[in-house]
């Protein structure tokens, strides 16, 4: 019963998963000074200077599970494993990200240049699994549907990256404010990483001998290594946790990333936008460990001699299976350096101002997540109610598979600017029908004449 409950909780975690890294499509309308450039550094603020609230200038929390939803797998409070299985895609992802703006600020130079800087703490994670893995776990490798089949488990991965981000950047305009360009440079300090660099393998159970074969390549890197000579993952994690007792001695990775963006006004109403965000990598050199499965490995059981010589050790055959699979993932001797690419984002968008208070934005984006990419389209609409309240909403077709309903508002109360939104409002009123949960909030103080592009329109 305990095991069933555990499995159920895991399934529900997938369903109700906390936060996600789906594309934040509302940034395309974001005029909060502290985050306006998160979608495209070519967005420039017009205030003389601004400062984000320390600790609360920005908070993004995103979580999602792309596999299945609660309402499609639970009937009358009964979790149906078969329905879970039928709802799963070939590849499924549990996505998570948080971004906490610690401090940011900016100022304008000569009405043309806008400079910003700041620091933020970022955590991103992706756990991916294939439908066949769930099938394998649910049915077991001895099930008639499984045994004798080559189960492709490619893509199975566990990725997590936490880092601090110190950044500075600027944006400016050319061609009489028809062309805007901007760039940010990030200096990154990697704190913890678990990175599945390669995951292309399959598992096969021989129907005659029950031999279990794993074929393919799997490479997993981490800096959660404690004693690099033992390569005991559990011990590694424990050792890593101990290191936080002396955070100043944490072995950190170093890296850089850049944001590049441009906007061009084709007409007074139509603008095209392009950006490449967070393109870079973090290199880890301390406390690192790499585990590899290279080629193929077959477990045939223990040698009969061992079984005959020690008949009481039958149970060790089961232990031997675990040991053999564990041994198949050989640790690369010695600590090896490795680099983790930052989760970059590439967008191409068009913004159409219907009139002074209404505009539309359509965007195509490709978002990287630890060697995996998600393609997304979104269509957003914004309505301005005077200068104080702006609402926005639309639709996002995440990974060309999941429909999300992003909504949000922006409140401009004098120098205080506050934004709140979600990429999927469905989660708020029908959480069992979606796997996508997200929220973001921004708060900033701005000073000086604000000639922001949209506010400017409103003033006219």
């Amino acid at each position: 019963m305990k095991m069933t409950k555990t499995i159920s909780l895991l399934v529900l975690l997938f369903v109700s998963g906390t936060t996600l890294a789906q594309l934040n499509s509302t940034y395309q309308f974001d005029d909060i000074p502290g985050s306006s450039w998160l979608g495209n550094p070519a967005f420039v603020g017009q205030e003389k200077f601004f400062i984000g609230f320390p600790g609360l200038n920005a908070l993004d929390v995103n979580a999602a599970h792309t596999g299945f939803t609660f309402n499609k797998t639970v009937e009358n409070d009964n979790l149906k494993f078969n329905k879970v299985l039928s709802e799963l895609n070939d590849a499924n992802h549990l996505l998570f990200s948080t971004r906490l703006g610690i401090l940011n600020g900016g100022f304008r130079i000569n009405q043309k240049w806008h400079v910003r800087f700041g620091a933020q703490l970022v955590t991103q994670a992706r756990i991916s699994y294939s439908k066949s893995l769930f099938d394998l776990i649910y049915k077991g490798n001895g099930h008639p549907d499984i045994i004798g089949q080559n189960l492709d488990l490619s893509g199975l991965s566990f990725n997590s990256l936490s880092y601090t981000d110190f950044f500075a950047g600027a944006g400016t305009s050319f061609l009489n404010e028809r062309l805007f360009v901007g760039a940010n440079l990030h200096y990154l300090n990697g704190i913890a990483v678990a990175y599945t660099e390669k995951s292309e393998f399959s598992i096969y159970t021989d129907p005659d001998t029950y031999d279990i074969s794993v074929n393919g390549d799997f490479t997993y890197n981490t800096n959660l290594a404690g004693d690099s000579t033992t390569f005991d993952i559990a011990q590694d994690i424990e050792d890593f946790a101990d290191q936080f007792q002396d955070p100043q001695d944490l072995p950190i990775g170093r890296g850089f990333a850049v944001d590049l963006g441009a906007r061009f006004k084709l007409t007074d109403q139509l603008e095209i936008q392009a950006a490449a965000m967070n393109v870079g990598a973090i290199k880890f050199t301390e406390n690192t460990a790499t585990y590899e499965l290279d080629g193929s490995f077959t477990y045939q059981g223990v040698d009969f001699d061992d079984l005959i010589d020690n008949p009481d050790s039958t149970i060790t055959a089961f232990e031997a299976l675990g040991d053999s699979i564990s041994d198949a993932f050989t640790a690369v001797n010695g600590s090896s350096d490795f680099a983790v690419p930052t989760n970059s984002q590439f967008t191409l968008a068009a913004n159409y101002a219907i009139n002074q208070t209404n505009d539309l934005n359509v965007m195509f984006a490709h978002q990287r997540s630890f060697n995996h990419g998600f393609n997304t389209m979104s269509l957003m609409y914004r309505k301005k109610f005077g200068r104080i309240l702006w609402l926005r909403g639309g639709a996002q077709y995440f990974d060309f598979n999941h429909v999300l309903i992003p909504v949000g508002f922006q409140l401009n109360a004098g120098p205080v600017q506050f934004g709140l939104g979600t990429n999927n409002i469905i989660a708020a009123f029908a959480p069992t029908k979606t796997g996508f949960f997200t929220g973001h909030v921004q708060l900033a103080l701005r000073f000086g004449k604000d000639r922001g592009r949209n506010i400017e329109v409103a003033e006219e």
Partner: protein
Amino acid sequence: MKNSLFIVASFLLLFSCRVDELKVEDWKPIAAIPLAYSNFDVYDVLTRTDSLDELLVFGTDGLMALNYKGELFSLGLDEILDLPDQSISQPLSFSESEADLIDSGIGLSSSFNIDTPLETDPEGIRIDEIVMLGGSFEFTYTIIQDEVFSGSLTLSNILDANSNPLSFVISSVDTEVGIPETVSFDLTGASILPAWEDPDNVLNIDFEFDVTDNPDNDAIEGDALDINISILQPEMDYIVGYFGQIPINTDRDSVSIRIFDNGLTGTFALEEAFIDLNIENSFGLPVAFDLTEVSSLNLDSGEETDLIFPNDLELQGQATLNGPPEEAVFAFDNNNTNVIELFEPSPKTIFFQLNASANPNGEPPIDMPNFIKHDSRLDVEIDVLLPLNGYAQDLLFIDTLSTELSFDEYAEIDSLEFKLASSNGFPISADAQILFLNENNVLLDSLFTHSTAVFASGDINADGIVENPGLTTVFATLDNEKAANLDSTEQVVIRVLANTTNSSNQQIVRFMEDYSMDVRLGVKIYGNIEQ
């Protein structure tokens, strides 16, 4: 970071009540796990079942043979001949007239000669020469009357390493009256050359002495001097002579045919078999063997088979004292005995009763005396060679293991289905059954509903050689009901019935060196994880 955790927790709490209310269907995964594997070659199979002294390739075509070796008996010098400790005493007395002569100052001069037999075991053997490896000769004298004694004792039959007769001096100087005076001589390298006076080997002792007056003492009639000589802890380097027709009796000995250790019944018919008695004889004397019994016995069936064998096995003995030992082989095979019949009842043991006697033809020529060295041995070893060329029919093996079974730990396992898959390249099949008994030997359950073929024999060609392996897959299920039945198991009885290919037609098969058998054991675990 705390803010992030709070948001995460909030989402989880959103569903926490649903988790409590949630029901899940039973989870019934089926795990298939390979437990064990092996490729057993002919050496693995036969040595595992037999713990053979040696497994041989017999002939040039790769035919295998079982080989059992053992020592039937081994004899050394000590078990044939012994030279025990021995001692003789000789008192010297004065007569009244001799006492008067001494007291008068004239003195007394005298001598005497003694022949004493050298004791041997057995008695009556003729000893021409013994060269000693160790031991001591002790001469002891005790002066009883306080007169002035001087003299000597000589043993002409015992020579020191320089071939000089042993000789000892008697003197009253510095000798206290009544206190024994002992002189020892190390016999290492010494020779004893007794005179043969049938049936004794005689040592001669020659004693000469002078007695003069001690003015402070009056000589009287009676004992005046005690003499004792001893040979202690003698060790022979070698002995030469004629030792007679001494019997060399051995105990009944046996050789275990371990391949049948757990066998009860059945027929084990070989095309040929060989029993060799390998003899190494470094005794320098002819020996006649009397092989009174060679028989096989199946202890379980009681079936006993006697070997018909030739008599009069005779050895000539090592030719020269320091030469090489005599080696001889007494071979029994199809040509001179019914040796193959010995193994037909799958015997566990072959018994031998072997007696021998020395000098069966009487005394050897004088220039070819018997001799035995301290390291001479008469070793008889048996070498049984069974080329695996024949057939085995209904060989029944039963083994019993004491064990306790418990299945309490696997409550979430509905059943286990074991799968044994074999590809048997040997021309022998095995039907097996495993019985589980309680402490009172009452049957609780069995692994199979009936005896099941676990290994099929390979297909053979006209020469009896396997051409295609026999393929077998056997399943055995252990479910909760059976597990409950087996919970009080104290004894596990394994019963195997083996037959070579087409044994009912007495088809001859051959066990070749390149035979092998693939065996794979796996298990399917049927889980039943209930809410």
